[in-house]
């Protein structure tokens, strides 16, 4: 990192033409980079096992694609509401932040509910972590992502409780933007998982 970048990090003033870069935001980006490497390893593991395995089911014959497509739509909707929550926070619109954060949490909880239903259905058909390579990689990958959605819902719920208590909405508050980075990352990863695990 060069001296200019260090100075930018230490500065509390927004830089013209760029969003304000706070230490918290940089910290979240560093965390997301390491997390993306974890997901990358899992996706490559899935792809290599699938490519070199003699037996692998066609995902569309085992998985409920229309249901998961709806779940994907739900997660994308949650990303839109998260964008609106961040915009409301920047505009210091407390009611808007509460409304859109609640909508994001509801969509995230809905995603988890549908995923739980999907898992229940798959378990009833005999697919599990130990039943086959497909089951092992499928549940590891989607379960790891589900754990992220769960932690995201808890994170946003904590944030919403803070907003209701009168915190986190102000001209220099970036807590909601930082939480938004995490939530959008979870959405971004799901786009890749949906394509590579469900559709390919």
């Amino acid at each position, binding site marked *: 990192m060069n001296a200019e970048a260090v100075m930018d990090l230490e500065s509390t003033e927004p830089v013209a033409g*760029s*969003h304000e870069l706070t230490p918290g935001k940089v910290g979240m980006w560093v965390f997301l980079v390491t997390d993306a490497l974890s997901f*990358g*390893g899992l996706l490559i593991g899935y792809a290599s096992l699938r490519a*070199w395995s003699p037996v692998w089911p066609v995902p569309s014959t085992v998985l409920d694609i229309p249901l998961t497509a709806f779940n994907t*739509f739900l997660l994308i909707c949650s*990303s839109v509401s998260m*964008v609106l929550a961040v915009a409301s926070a920047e505009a210091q619109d407390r009611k808007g932040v509460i409304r859109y954060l609640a909508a994001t949490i509801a969509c995230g909880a809905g995603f988890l509910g549908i995923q739980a239903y999907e898992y229940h259905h798959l378990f009833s058909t005999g697919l599990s972590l130990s039943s086959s390579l497909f089951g092992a990689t499928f549940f590891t990958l989607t379960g790891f992502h589900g754990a992220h959605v769960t932690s995201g819902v808890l994170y946003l719920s904590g944030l919403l409780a803070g907003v209701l208590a009168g915190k986190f909405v102000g001209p220099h508050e970036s807590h909601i*933007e930082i939480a938004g980075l995490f939530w959008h990352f979870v959405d971004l990863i799901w786009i890749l998982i949906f394509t590579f695990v469900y559709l*390919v």
Partner: protein
Amino acid sequence: MAEVLLTKTGLGRTTILSGLVAMSALKAAAVAAFYMHLRWERIWLTALALTPFVFTTLFAVVLILENGR
């Protein structure tokens, strides 16, 4: 959803696969650029955000080469 419709078109497997990869990459890039504000961030932050994709690609290439031996 466009990806689901693409799988129903009856096109060749390679065409569908290429289309799916391109569409998901485009959507992921759009989320990072606009929702995560990377388009307006400093260049070093964008470079940092791209490192997982570089290393994952390297990992995939090494695996493919190793399997080819």
